[in-house]
């Protein structure tokens, strides 16, 4: 791997001096490829942290345009962005933050037909979608490509995060095998999105750096009403139609 430039040493100094990162870790971050599914409340924060940390290749996808009622939590988008495609607004801010990152922005709905192409050769998926159906697609791409899927979700004053690793942990559909009834316009306070996406971003960087201590088979449940963080122990579901390979062969 090419050595770090003097500019990189300065820019990333505060993380390079961490024993868990160091020069080698920074090179891993520079070579990392991350797919961020959505640049709304969660994606605003995770995309910002990925770019700030110097992730070399960031792919983002979103179908929406910026609305005024997004701005209480979607901190990548500013008042003058109302009406713009979210990926264009995100691309502009991320480039301003860190012009060294290669960013691919796709203004498209994530569907069964395009999800594999959108995820491409990314080494991990950061979930920042706003519905269970798209998460099912991301989960299937994760299982099929054998790459980690860092799930995050928010609702009201609560957030949830876990890291699904194919072959090692439960998958999204081990937990949620039903088709969820979609709820639109979920209530949320901005910091709930920030907190949840920050935990996800930490998981992503740990995965890139090859660190342990991940939220594997642990669903972190954050309740901001009384500021409690608790874990729900989960396991692979033997009846899962997605990650249980024997059953997959049957369907």
């Amino acid at each position, binding site marked *: 791997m090419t050595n770090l430039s003097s500019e990189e040493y300065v820019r990333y100094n505060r993380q390079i001096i961490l024993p868990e990162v160091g020069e080698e870790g920074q090179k891993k971050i520079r070579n990392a490829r991350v797919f961020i599914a959505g640049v709304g409340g969660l994606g605003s924060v995770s995309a910002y942290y990925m770019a700030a940390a110097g992730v070399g290749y960031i792919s983002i996808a979103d179908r929406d345009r910026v609305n005024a009622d997004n701005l209480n939590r979607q901190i990548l988008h500013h008042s003058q962005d109302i009406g713009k495609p979210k990926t264009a607004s995100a691309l502009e801010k991320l480039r301003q933050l860190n012009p060294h990152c290669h960013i691919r922005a796709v203004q498209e709905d994530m569907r069964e037909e395009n999800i594999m192409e959108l995820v491409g050769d990314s080494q991990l998926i950061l979930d*920042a979608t706003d519905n269970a159906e798209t998460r099912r697609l991301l989960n299937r791409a994760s299982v099929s490509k054998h790459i980690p899927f860092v799930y995050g979700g928010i*609702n009201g004053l*609560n957030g949830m995060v876990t890291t699904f690793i194919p072959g090692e942990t439960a998958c999204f559909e081990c*937990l949620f095998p*039903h088709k969820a009834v979609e709820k639109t316009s*979920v209530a*949320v306070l901005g910091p709930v999105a920030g907190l949840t996406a920050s935990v996800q971003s930490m998981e992503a960087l740990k995965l890139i750096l090859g660190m342990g201590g991940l939220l594997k088979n642990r669903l972190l449940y954050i309740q901001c009403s009384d500021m409690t963080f608790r874990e729900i122990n989960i396991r692979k579901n033997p009846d899962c139609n997605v990650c249980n390979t024997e059953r997959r062969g049957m369907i």
Partner: protein
Amino acid sequence: MSKYVDVIINGFKEKVPEKASISFLITHFKEGDTDLIVEHNGQFVYPQKYAGAAVSEGDRIEFINPNFGG
């Protein structure tokens, strides 16, 4: 006459029929979310096991609504 047992549901003491299943409790307590997360004595219960999972005296059940917003 069926016997009743005390269980703790989301932190509250409730009387439910002995050997009631998780499926029964979901209907009884009107937990409407299809993608509910259920913990039984600290263990995650797979949705496929709701019908067969029976509760006993003193059991702790948590119904948690999943967060799918972003």
